[in-house]
């Protein structure tokens, strides 16, 4: 775990790369999450001050968007599409299988910190569903066997 002085120094470095940008808050939050894996609580007041907005406003923006995390995810993130086109080819069945095998419900992380399971609403892979994205890698036509293989490869 980083101490807060180190975190703040890195956040200030990120801020220096976004000076003069119109509507910079989302790019800044993305950059912070890319750096730390989540948006640390101590980062928000620093960002708010730099952008001349209130801490509440910065928190409001961060918490509005599904992408931004308040706490780190597991070492691996498995996202399964739950949208209609994937439902039409068995996404609900595949998701139920994944939840059972992992022993996790949506948004939960396994006790050993290995895997976080999340729903996602459309990856644009609607003609080759059910779709998934594992640590940024896209996977199409996911079935129970593919779920087992994907989960087996995560540790």
């Amino acid at each position, binding site marked *: 775990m980083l101490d807060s002085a180190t975190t703040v120094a890195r956040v200030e470095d990120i801020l220096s790369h976004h000076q003069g940008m119109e*509507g910079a808050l989302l790019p800044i939050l993305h950059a912070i999450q890319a750096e730390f894996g989540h948006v640390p609580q101590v980062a928000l007041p620093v960002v708010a001050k730099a952008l001349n907005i209130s801490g509440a406003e910065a928190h409001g923006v961060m918490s509005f968007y599904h992408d931004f995390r308040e706490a780190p995810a597991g070492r691996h993130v498995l996202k399964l599409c739950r949208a209609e086109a994937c439902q*039409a080819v068995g996404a609900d069945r595949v998701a139920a299988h994944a939840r059972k095998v992992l022993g996790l419900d949506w948004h939960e992380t396994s006790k050993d910190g290995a895997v976080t399971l999340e729903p996602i609403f459309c*990856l*644009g892979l609607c*003609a080759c569903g059910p779709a998934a994205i594992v640590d940024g890698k896209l996977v199409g036509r996911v079935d129970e066997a593919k779920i087992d293989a994907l989960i087996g490869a995560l540790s």
Partner: protein
Amino acid sequence: MKIYLPLDSAAVALGADEIAEAILSQAQARGVSVDLVRNGSRGMVWLEPLVEVVTEAGRLAFGPMTLADVPALFGDLSEHPKALGLTEDLPWLRTQTRLTFARVGVIDPHSLADYEAQGGLAGLRRALTMDRAAIVAEVTASGLRGRGGAGFPTGIKWKTVSEAKADRKYIVCNADEGDSATFADRMLMEGDPFTLIEGMVIAGLACGATKGFVYIRSEYPVAVRVMQEAIAIARAEGVLGNVLGSGQIFDMEVRVGAGAYVCGEETSLLNSLEGKRGVVRAKPPLPALQGFMGKPTVVNNVISLASIPVIFEKGAELYKSFGLGRSRGTIPLQIAGNVKHGGLYEIAFGLTLGEIVDGIAGGTASGCPVKAVQVGGPLGAYFPRSLFGTPFGYEEFAGKDGLIGHAGLTVFDDSADMLAQARFAMEFCAIESCGKCTPCRIGAVRGVETVDRIAKGDASAIPLLTDLCATMKAGSLCALGGFTPYPVLSALTHFPDDFNRMKEAAE
């Protein structure tokens, strides 16, 4: 030896990157020099990963490729187990009218030389000879309407921005393609990013705007990467900046969303772009007058903007000559869900739903009968077979209590439970509601509960659901709350049996 293999997300999700590695290592082992071009997808997703080998006769297609099929690419191609013949002779491609997607899957997305050789920049060069009013008039004459779903005439929107007085104006491309069954924006950005750039530059010239943003959803990492690279190339080559040396200025950048469906709504997108919560704004003021940072702003969908270059290259009259009624030009149909042949098919408006689903898509992948087709994404209506005669057009679908939206079609076979689909529509609305207006924020939650009551056999909840839908439709600020009733009510109207099951079980 020149080989094309898509970098398109769908191809990658089906193993294209692994095929690419195998091709390169096979080539090295055999001492063959291979020029491997990662292009966009031709749109035949059931054939991905689709490899094309350039021969004297033309480009030969092979697919769907597996790793085991790679070595045979270096042997007698006519004997290859996945040989499909010349790509351009494949029926799926031969029967299309590709205007907006003419270059997607054909060119190297990062080669400006390829782009120009296939007609790219011709439209921009013509627009540079015209004054602002003439550019707007050309767009109006083409009959182009917003391809994001609302169908608002693009020329009228541009005219409003063009005539507005302001020190700064903006062109914003809505690439927050969150509707399930839609992937045309993604395919266009991954396969032919310069077309979108050219369309945005022309929009800038027409409106007197010097800055553009492409707001791409974070679920599209490949599209984000390809667009960013293409913008850098366009800037280095003088397409952006001082536009082709004309003295007119236009530059643009990519902004990435953060997983909020509602940001596909234009006012919510503008708030997000400004660094705020993606909450919907009340209209008026229109974004055309007070948009990004309160300045006049064009907000157009990817496909609307990407259709601009061909309109200027070939003329508004040609574009307008396709289509039916007030739906002019072509539409990239996105065929998805439980279908034999899924993918992107660009054609003039006017095919019937049945021609699309039974003909082009070839029915279901499962082989079971088609039960319902959801047209237009999560906010679109479910169409039963009895409405398969409906021609594909804005007014034609509105006349059947539906919408074409962004032209995505999700096909369901007879295993679909339409009550569950209605429940999902409400659940999705509850998850994604921005929270600004009550009918959407609270109504969607009550909607899920009401559908659950119906599922338990409480028939008295059916009129309540209908009433709730009427409130959401009339009282919501934007299409999320306002259109969620479409899938719910269409499921209830066209598939009443699915809402009666429990009662039957009890009897």
